[in-house]
């Protein structure tokens, strides 16, 4: 069987042939025992690989891995950050001085606007209070603006026995004797 025929047989196995070429390969497989054996080998290896992809785990702690990534991101961003802004030109400074008397009034209006804005739905997150009464649980929170959802998530507080000083551990052990 020549190379071209073998590659066509492989392409047939992988679903890469059009109908007429596929029919051609089917005829070959019906007629040629060696071709059938070869096809079966390819099919078996393909199946074996797809069902048994080796699994590899990251060989270092995820925290360490992430710390290197976050540092690389910070370096990349520092390199692409724009330069410091130039000091304001003289005309801008003059304008600022002229506007100073009206800034007090502007502040008041802004406060009023802020007050009005607080009546709208978007500031509810800022007006939230949480009181946790459980010694065993802590609360974390998240807001999903698109889905209009606020989540309060309870997680157990973890207590690290290893962090306790030695004498305290001994006392606890005494309690359980």
């Amino acid at each position, binding site marked *: 069987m020549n190379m071209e025929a073998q590659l066509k047989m492989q392409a047939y196995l992988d679903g890469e042939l059009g109908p007429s070429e596929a029919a051609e390969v089917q005829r070959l497989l019906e007629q040629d025992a060696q071709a059938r054996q070869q096809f079966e080998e390819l099919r078996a290896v393909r199946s074996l690989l797809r069902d048994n992809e080796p699994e590899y785990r990251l060989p270092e702690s995820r925290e360490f891995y992430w710390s290197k990534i976050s540092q690389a991101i910070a370096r990349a961003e520092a390199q692409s950050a724009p330069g410091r802004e130039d000091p304001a030109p003289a005309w801008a400074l003059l304008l600022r001085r002229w506007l100073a*008397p009206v800034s*007090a*009034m502007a502040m*008041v*209006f802004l*406060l*009023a606007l802020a*007050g*009005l804005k*607080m*009546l709208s*739905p978007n500031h*509810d*997150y800022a*007006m*939230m*209070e*949480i*009181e*946790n*009464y*459980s010694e065993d*649980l802590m*609360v974390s929170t998240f807001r*999903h603006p*698109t*889905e*209009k*959802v*606020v*989540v*309060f*998530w*309870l*997680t157990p507080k973890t207590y690290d026995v290893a962090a306790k000083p030695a004498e305290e551990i001994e006392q606890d052990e005494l309690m359980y004797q």
Partner: protein
Amino acid sequence: MTRGAYNFLQRLGAVVMAATMMLWSFGASAANLEINLKLIWGTNDAKSPNPKHKPVSPELTNKLRKIFQWKNYFEVNDVTGRVPSRQSKKFRLSDKCEIEITEMEGPKVEIKLYGEGKVVNKITKPLLKGESVFIGAEDKGENSWFIMISLVNED
């Protein structure tokens, strides 16, 4: 700036602040709230071990999948009730879990989660139509539970 101009600005500021307070107080009107609470179990398993628990609606499943990492969500309980203005109502969601909602000035609600009869936490926030509040935690077997609180209506 002249003394006259300064005084004018002061008075103007006071008027604006007063107006703001008035507008603010309009928002603090009393309301009776109709609230829906669902107790939901989240899992990657295809079925809940309790056959009484039905999957939540496809719309809700899609919404929850956008927020949380679990694949499937089952309704354990669904309760709707009325919280009168400036009063409290307790909603029993399971043998171990209750939520007490109090309608407060603001408009805000105070949400208290009770676990086995004891207050676990208290949340105070505005509750707006179209927005849902979730209180949840992980359950054994890498599953989770949530209480979904939504404002159905207010009058």
